[in-house]
């Protein structure tokens, strides 16, 4: 099964807009390929300002260059993408901070959920096309979350396992609307299609998605353990 493009609406390569990007991946061939695909600044608006191939160098390069977006591989020598996220937590701010987009061959639920909880703003697989990747990078840079259908499925799954929590955990649950939005993403709808379907604006869709992402990052350890146990991941 091929991971399709995350469905989004942000215009790629708006004239004059650029995003500074750091590539983190332990395969040089892959970094070279991605750089060749998206790094033509005049055409794509992406400026690759640094590369790293393990956790140590990634943390250093990110701290030095302060890029807009880090393309982060999930499996890295030295502790993996989650470790990079943990050690770079201080650089992630709501406004103007460094944002992380996970880019991995893995589509295992624990990898995806792991980096999202670690603070990544989105997750795409390496089968993504160059154009879609550029799109995703700009959406991330704008502060949105990138939910591929598969990620939406994992999130629904994670929250479905904890569907009947006590009342005081209401904060962490998905609202009906958020669930609807996620379901439509999982069904392959683009954000603007979702907006049309639910009679809301694209901005509202994006805010729902961001809310889901925040809840996913905030949902407590107890829930995560239960979810992982239910899937025999631990």
């Amino acid at each position, binding site marked *: *099964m*091929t*991971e*399709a493009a995350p469905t989004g609406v942000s215009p790629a390569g708006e004239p004059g807009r650029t995003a500074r990007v750091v590539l983190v991946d332990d395969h040089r061939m892959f970094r070279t390929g991605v750089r060749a695909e998206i790094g033509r600044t005049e055409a794509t608006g992406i400026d690759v300002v640094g590369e790293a191939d393990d956790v140590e160098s990634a943390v250093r390069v990110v701290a030095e260059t302060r890029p807009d977006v880090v393309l982060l591989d999930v499996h890295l020598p030295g502790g993996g993408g989650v470790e990079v996220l943990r050690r770079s937590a201080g650089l992630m701010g709501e406004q103007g901070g460094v944002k992380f987009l996970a880019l991995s061959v893995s589509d295992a639920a624990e990898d995806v959920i792991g980096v999202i909880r670690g603070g990544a703003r989105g997750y795409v697989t390496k089968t993504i096309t160059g154009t879609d990747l550029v799109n995703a990078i700009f959406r991330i840079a704008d502060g949105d979350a990138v939910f591929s*259908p*598969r990620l*939406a*499925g994992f999130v*629904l*799954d994670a929250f*479905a396992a904890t569907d009947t929590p006590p009342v005081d955990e209401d904060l962490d649950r998905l609202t009906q609307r958020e669930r609807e939005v996620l*379901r439509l993403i*999982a*069904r*392959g*709808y*683009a954000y*603007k*299609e979702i907006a*049309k*379907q639910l009679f809301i604006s694209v901005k509202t869709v994006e805010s729902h998605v961001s809310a889901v992402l925040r809840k996913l990052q905030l949902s407590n350890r107890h829930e995560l353990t239960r979810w992982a146990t239910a899937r025999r991941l631990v």
Partner: protein
Amino acid sequence: MYRSPQGRMLGGVAHGLAVHLGLPVSWVRVAFVLLFFAQGIGGLLYAAFWFVVPIGIGEPAQRGGTHWVYVNGAFVPASPWQGGGPAGAELSKGGRRGGWIGRLREVLQHALQGEPAVAAGDAVGGPADAAGTGTGTGAASRSQRQGGLGQLAALVMLVIGVIALLNALNVQTAKPYTWPLLAIGVGVALVWRQADDSRWQRWFGLEEGNRRRGAYTRVGAGVLLVVAGTIAFLATQGSGSTIGSVVEASLAVLAGVLVLVGPYALRMWQDLGAERTARIRAQERAEIAAHVHDSVLHTLTLIQRRAEDPKEVLRLARAQERELRLWLYRPEAVAEAAPDTMAESLRAVVAEVEDRHGVPVELVIVGDCPMDERITAQMQAAREATVNAAKYGGGGPVQVYAEVEGRTVMVFVRDHGPGFDPDTVPEDRMGVRESILGRMKRNGGTARVRPAPDGGTEVELEMERSDD
């Protein structure tokens, strides 16, 4: 039913019958013994069963795996090979019943049964009782000795049965040819019994060499008995005067034939073995060839024809590799191919459609549930919908989303093709109407086909799981 080779006295008839009927084996044995005395019917029945019923691996070992011996009203586990043989003989020497009975049994065992005599205990309440050889009272360990005695007793019972049969047929035991007939009977029993054993051994090959000697002894004894019985019978019938010359002549002819035909027979025997091996190999090769032809060769031909289309070649190669791997390394998975949960089933469907039509299909599944009849129908409908999306969806990725929520299973199949209006589909096109809408309706679910908001078509399949 099958005759049971484990824990048997003679041919395993009683054992097999007991397992078949679900009765304790001792009851069956008592019944046979009683019938022996009812004009020898028991003997006839036993012989008939022995003749007709094959010795079997079809029956599971009694009462789950180990062999069970009935001792003092309780079943205790015992090894099927215990009792008899050297071990049993030694035990009996040291045992209370040692002395000449033990020795006699030992000798008879070696002569008649061959080495490690099959079968343990079961003597209690069995023929041994009736035959009056006496049974030990007690512990499981003693059933070893009883095992040998039991077999001996069974043979004795057979003899008695045959005598009773002859009596019933109005043949006085006093008549001189009774004993020769008896000898023939015992000889035949021995040879048959050995035939069973060798078959049993071929299935569960224990150490061959050791047992083979015993087997030859037994067959030899049986043949000897039959021959002697026949000669004695002829002699008592009055043709005794000529018997000497007849035997002489026969032996001479036999020797001549052996000398002449012997080498050919030997060669033939060897050829037979070689041919059998070759045939088995050829069969295997034919099976592999058939499979390779059906799949690999077929695919290679397709690849040659479409060499200029790398996408297609890739697709074919991938599908073929998956299939061949499965066939080679996980044949049991092919056999039990039917997946037993919704997610597995849908994954298989999607993989197959993806391979066959070369269109990427993105699958997202939330939750899972076991398959039932309705879900199976839903999966078939989903398959048809996915195939349609792959065929008419403009080559873009097809999105399949399935969710189990409570008892409801929803499947969405979406493509980004030109879209179509279900109402304009001609009457004779059965794909959507029958395979999707009709199938879902017949199985108590609903299906909707509608245009997606931004182009393309979405099929929605909703089904309640059946009550379990």
